[in-house]
């Protein structure tokens, strides 16, 4: 099940990150905590996927990184959603909704 979860996560991680960052500037550690919490421990994002994803999204101009003081007083890199990132998130959400609707429809119809 762990294997399948991580495969599933891979395809949706970008969208999840964008969605969480959309709530306000946030650093990498908090993102991984947030994903874990909100999914009620269903997803645990390994750092080996999280940071490459963050940097890839930053490189594409969807996220903007900025160093500032964290809640513990230490400097941390906070990510914020850019306008381009917001548009990307919208596209991905629409796509996701259509996909899950389609999957749900098949599951229901095939019953």
């Amino acid at each position, binding site marked *: 099940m762990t294997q399948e979860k991580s495969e599933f996560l891979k395809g949706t991680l970008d969208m999840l990150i964008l969605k969480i960052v959309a709530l306000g500037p946030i650093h990498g*550690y908090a993102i991984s905590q947030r994903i874990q919490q909100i999914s009620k421990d269903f997803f645990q994002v390994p*750092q*080996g996927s999280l*940071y*490459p994803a963050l*940097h890839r999204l*930053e490189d594409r101009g969807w996220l903007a990184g900025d160093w500032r003081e*964290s809640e513990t007083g230490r400097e941390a890199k906070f990510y914020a959603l850019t306008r381009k990132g917001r548009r990307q998130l919208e596209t991905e959400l629409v796509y996701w909704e259509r996909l899950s609707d389609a999957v749900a429809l098949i599951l229901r119809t095939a019953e």
Partner: protein
Amino acid sequence: MHWLRRIFHKEQAEKHLDAELRFHLERQVSDYVAAGMPPEEARRRAHLDFGGLESIKQQTREARRGNFIEILRQDVRYGFRMLGKNPGFTTVAVLTLALGIGGTTAIFSVVSSALLRPLPYHDPAQLVWVADENPRAHMTVVLESDYFAYQQLKGAFQDVAAYEPGETHALTGFGDAVRLNGGAVTYNFFDVLGVLPQMGRSFLPEEDRAGVAHTVLLTDACWRQHFSSDPHIIGRSIALDNESYSVIGVLPPQFEFLDNPRIEVIVPLALQNREISITKPMRLVRAVARLRQGITPLAAAANVDAANQRIWAGYPPSWAGMMEGTRAQVLPLREHLVGKAQPALLVLLAAVASVLLIACLNIANLQLARGVSREKEIAIRGALGAEVAIRMALGAEPRDVLWMILSRGLVLAATGLVFGLTGAFALTRLLGTLLYRVRPSDPATFVGVTLALLAVALAACWIPARRAMRVDPMVALRYE
């Protein structure tokens, strides 16, 4: 300039990445501690969660495509490897490129230095070469007495000067004896060309006579090479063929003697025979003239022909017969100096340019059709198409794939350039010894040609690359 900033900030980016990951790790540790774990255990667990720090860093770096130099280096290395795998293709491509590049550069360098570079004289368009062409004797020169007659043709020429490139002189007294290329001119030669010495003066009329004290002018190259740029050279005596000559001037660096740019020392011609005579030895000279404003070379030639008829009427009968059929020739100086080579050079240039074109087409073609062709789609678009399709299917961005193909082409072109320019350099040196006014290495030409050729080579790679990108990844994968 996104990537430029990144190169300079690479070190900083590396530091930031480290700090970012470390922050994560430490927050994890303190959260575990807060949950009641002993600090040692918390640290161990956090590290365990994290996995290999270095491998995460590497993956994160790779997630950024931006590092231009890094990518270039990888692609170039990849390009070399791919070429190494196809020695046949590589050899053919590099050889054709080298041939095309070498030929084009050499010939273009010759053409530009011989044909495009202006003559280093004042208002060179007004300068003409004057000669009498005798078809039977195959001679195109001027008899010294005739030269004096032409000086009177004020309707056609502002002035006429005579010159003779010719003898070598032994220079002694400055270390080992050396042989210098010498030329001889009438005193007004430099006035006709409009050339002023950079130091000293040119000849005076009274110095252009036989039996007076010897005077000499040095070219800039001669002055630098044999007299170590001596600033006090004017007025010094030098020994040429064991006779003493007084140096009266040094010519400017851009000056080139007519017909033979390698001439280093110039002495007065000292013509004496103003009248024709069969008892004295008559000298044959060459003549250069400055046209009067508004006179065409053709009109001037008619003037000279008319004058010749008068002069030859006074010749001894035996000579008059010899002059029969002789026609005046008044040619723009440029045409005289490089004109004979001009059509040949242009034809050659066209020939080597087409070799280059063929070379580029070949490369485009080879890129396209390299490897064993497979079924339909692949067969049409070639192995490159399959490779591109696979990369695209694996998630590469079109921009990256395009760049990969271009960088491979660049590697090819650069290798071809190295061979080609080496050949070109040798070829221009050779041509420089055969043709007038050709400089062995004209840096501007070499740089210009290099840039132009790189552009052509890139275009030759671009076209097959664009075509290959159109392959549907699914189709390509099915045949791979």
